[in-house]
């Protein structure tokens, strides 16, 4: 039995901006249980006294000098754009803007 509901998958898919078919939603709901099982196993050993490792090797303070490098030529910038106009990328109307 799936512990992650189809509604939950649909909500996550919306958050991840991926259109899924109903079949995909149902399929993933079942498959996502793998994560729940992993969590159960991991939380058994990963007690809170163990520090987290976010980076495999312990580097700090890697900085770049504040020295400009050339911009990509505008033709290269827009070459891959699905659509462009006046040197800018054209995108569909953005909701939530005035």
């Amino acid at each position: 039995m799936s512990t992650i509901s189809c509604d939950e998958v649909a909500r996550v898919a919306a958050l991840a901006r991926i259109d899924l078919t109903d079949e995909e939603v149902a399929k993933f709901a079942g498959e996502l249980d793998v994560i729940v099982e992993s969590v159960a196993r991991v939380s058994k050993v990963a007690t809170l006294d163990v520090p987290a490792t976010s980076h495999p090797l312990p580097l700090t303070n890697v900085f770049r000098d504040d020295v400009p490098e050339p911009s990509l030529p505008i033709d290269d910038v827009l070459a891959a754009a699905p659509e462009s106009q006046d040197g800018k990328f054209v995108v569909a109307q953005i909701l939530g803007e005035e």
Partner: protein
Amino acid sequence: MSNEKLVDYDDAVKRYDPVIGIEVHVELGTRTKMFDGAEQGFGAPANTQVTPISLGLPGTLPVTNGKAVEYAIRIGLALNCQIAEVCRFARKHYFYPDIPKNFQTSQSDEPIAFDGHLDVELEDGTMFRVEIERAHMEEDAGKNTHVGGADGRIHGADYSLVDYNRSGIPLVEIVTKPILGAGERAPEVARAYVQTLRDIFRALEVSEARMERGNVRADINVSLRPTPDSPLGTRSETKNVNSFRSIEKAVRYEVSRHAAILDAGNKVPQETRHFHEEDGTTSSGRPKSDADDYRYFPEPDLVPVAPSRQWVEDIRAALPELPAARRRRLHDAWGFADAEMRDVVNAGALDLIDATVAAETTPAAARKWWMGELSRVAKQADVALDELAITPAQVGELQSLIDAKRINDKIARQVIDGVLAGEGDPAAVVEARGLEIVSDDGPLLAAIDETLAAQPDIVEKVRGGNLGPIGAIIGAVMKATKGQADAGRVRELIIERIGA
């Protein structure tokens, strides 16, 4: 125009205690962006300040601009913050066309600076302490321009154009703790706080801090509660309020709006609001929702920032004098009355007077010109004092001409006119316009003798020890010399002549 129900502001603050919170974003004036070497600068043609990194192209990686980190530490220290021993960047996810990676690289629970405060001087000289929760580093988004839908696209839909020049410009976001106790002065506190920050950014030389260019942007949180002892109310967050005047208006508007909602027994929805410059109102943006699940996690492509204590102390030692300290120092040095000093600050004349004093003028004289004649001219022309076409050095030169008795105060006004008209420095204007006062006693004595001869009765009075009428004689001599005489010298000569 908004059709929100509003309560009169004065009425609202009698019955509710406003609590504000302010998030200020400042664009750092580094040469390059936060995480890539693309140059940044105002006014470049669209998409000409972008590298593959600024565009978020597949495969690209960020590298932190060390100068931006230094600037962030400078800001943190100026706001009396602790500087983190170690902090990390995090990814803040939300899909938006102006965010090329669809996440913003920011700092979530590990800001570089935290727990600070800023003392803000209000217009009447009261000091108000604003507690700072944190100051963290992040990157700016690109810019969308909306285009109307009259071009025959599908459904006549509007569309947007995106320019990524701004994408990746370093930002520091400064977040206050809830500002309590401002009461009816909340709008003024909000404005003064942002204005003080702006002055600090400039003094620190971390940003040009030009509000009109969006270098400094404020988000204003407002909530109301019945009394200062009540728990905090639900807040609204008014985004991108970008002028000092608007900040005051936004707070006032939100206080009035919240009061009306609460009066009606309703709950204030937690939402973002848009501010409308033209009428000082706000309108509903979007409610807090699923889209605010930002899924923060530590940015794996960047390593932690661990500023050594030595580095922090070096930066602290090199901090320039901050505006408040400078004001105190200048106040003492100049000896102005408190009210005079406040007027100077409010008029934006502090730097101008300081520079004029540096041009070897007395503080009193510098203040006299900037707060007097020049303020009048500026007001007439509806421009800021520092926008007048006259420099502190020129004002200094003007005063030294007066001190040398080559011109007097009255003529000085004509000289100012000349300088503002672009006729050159004061000395050149005096020369070109032939304004130099007559200092040779010969012609003066001639004029005096002539006047005295015409007014024997006054001469008698003065001889008799009544110096009162002497002014009339001086006035007549000045008139005869078309104002180009040194009034003081005229007086001396008259007294000498009459033998009083």
